[in-house]
């Protein structure tokens, strides 16, 4: 069972970046007025941010990281850079290596990508802790971001209006007096096909298939190089596993939901997050939502929600947070942690 107690780590800053361009649900040309209304009501997505053609997830994360490092003045103390993304710049090398150089980090800094989506930010926090908690490393820069809009077909009503683009940077450091964190995580690979881009890598290289758009259901057009999502399977997975994982984490920490300041869920869609929240008996005001303005931003959705919805509280208050990421894989991770005096910024990418 992947349950862990994490020690000696503190989050110092969380910066997020979203593109300036806004796509509104009601302007999506493949929705009728009623469909748009129903989609916005059910998913909660009123609008989302979409990156320009020449902007990548690493570009958005770069801006978040560069601004954070300038503000914190700690370029030379970063010993590890982790970039959580499923939309890297290249097949190889890892985008983290490119970012190490672009950010001007020392060559003594380790850097690698982590190929996880919606659960990735929480896994990234765990990784940062694993490297920091022995006291060997000084600071870790965790970047999490995705340009999911590059993978969706414009005529796929189930995916195209759901996703937004965003990047984030989180600064963590060794803190010998830091309070314990508690983690529960898991994987169910039987759900691999529920969220998938089939073509483009080794199993189905581009040259091995004809890139043909197919109407897989009424109003749902895509090819094998586009992201396909089975909403019903995702809903079932989330409702079956996420409440259990949150309960496991709370049990490990020996606390109950009413002792939490906030439950911060991956912003999958409002129907899923509301269903989980109600199952956990957490009031709406303790479960911040950013999906209305940004859509599902994959690995960036938790840090983005922290920056957009909890900025003041993170700066001024000592908080007990439970973060839970879940999605593609299927994969999930819940982390209970305390924060104090965390700097945040929400920036736009021109």
């Amino acid at each position, binding site marked *: 069972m992947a349950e862990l107690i994490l020690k000696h780590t503190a989050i110092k800053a969380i910066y997020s970046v979203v593109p300036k361009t806004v796509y509104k649900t009601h302007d999506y040309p493949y929705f009728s007025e009623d*469909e748009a209304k129903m*989609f916005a009501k059910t998913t909660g997505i009123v609008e989302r941010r979409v990156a320009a053609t020449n902007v990548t997830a690493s570009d958005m994360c770069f801006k978040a990281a560069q601004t954070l490092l300038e503000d914190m003045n700690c370029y030379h103390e970063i010993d590890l850079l982790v970039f959580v993304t499923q939309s890297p710049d290249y097949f190889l090398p890892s985008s983290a290596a490119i970012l190490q150089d672009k950010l001007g980090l020392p060559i003594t800094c380790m850097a690698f990508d982590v190929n996880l989506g919606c659960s990735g930010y929480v896994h990234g926090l765990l990784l940062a802790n694993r490297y920091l908690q022995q006291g060997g490393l000084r600071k870790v820069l965790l970047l999490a971001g995705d340009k999911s809009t590059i993978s969706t077909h414009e005529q796929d009503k189930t995916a195209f209006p759901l996703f937004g683009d965003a990047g984030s940077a989180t600064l963590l450091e060794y803190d010998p007096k830091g309070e314990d964190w508690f983690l529960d995580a898991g994987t169910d690979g039987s759900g691999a096909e529920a969220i998938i881009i089939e073509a483009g890598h080794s199993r189905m290289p581009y040259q091995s298939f004809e890139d043909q758009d197919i109407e897989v259901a009424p109003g749902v057009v895509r090819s094998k190089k586009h992201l396909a999502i089975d909403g019903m399977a995702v809903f*079932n997975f989330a409702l079956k596993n996420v409440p259990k994982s949150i309960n496991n984490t709370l049990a490990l920490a020996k606390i109950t939901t009413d002792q939490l300041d906030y439950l911060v869920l991956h912003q999958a869609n409002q129907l899923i997050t509301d269903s989980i929240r109600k199952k956990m008996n957490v009031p709406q005001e303790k479960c911040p939502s950013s999906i209305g303005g940004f859509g599902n931003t994959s690995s960036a959705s938790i840090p983005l929600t922290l920056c957009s919805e909890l900025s003041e509280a993170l700066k001024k208050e000592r908080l007990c947070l439970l973060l839970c990421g879940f999605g593609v894989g299927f994969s999930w991770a819940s982390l209970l942690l305390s924060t104090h005096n965390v700097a945040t910024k929400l920036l736009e990418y021109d």
Partner: protein
Amino acid sequence: MEIVDFIAAIEEEFEDLNPGDVSPNSVFRDMEGWSSMHALIFVALIDSKYDVLLNGDELKSCVTIKDLFDITFLKINGGGANT
């Protein structure tokens, strides 16, 4: 668990529906503008009201509101429905 309550919950959930619009024999996929979104709302509603999670195959096996009620009832009790 009564089918009238089940139907009332469905009529309350969808703002286009008025009381009396839905009967046990209503074919839910014939609802105006039916989409995968409606299917998710049904599943979420049943989960929140009855703590029963229907998967895609179970939903596919249902045609009428009564089918949905019956499968929900069976998953709760493992017995016949009280219609």
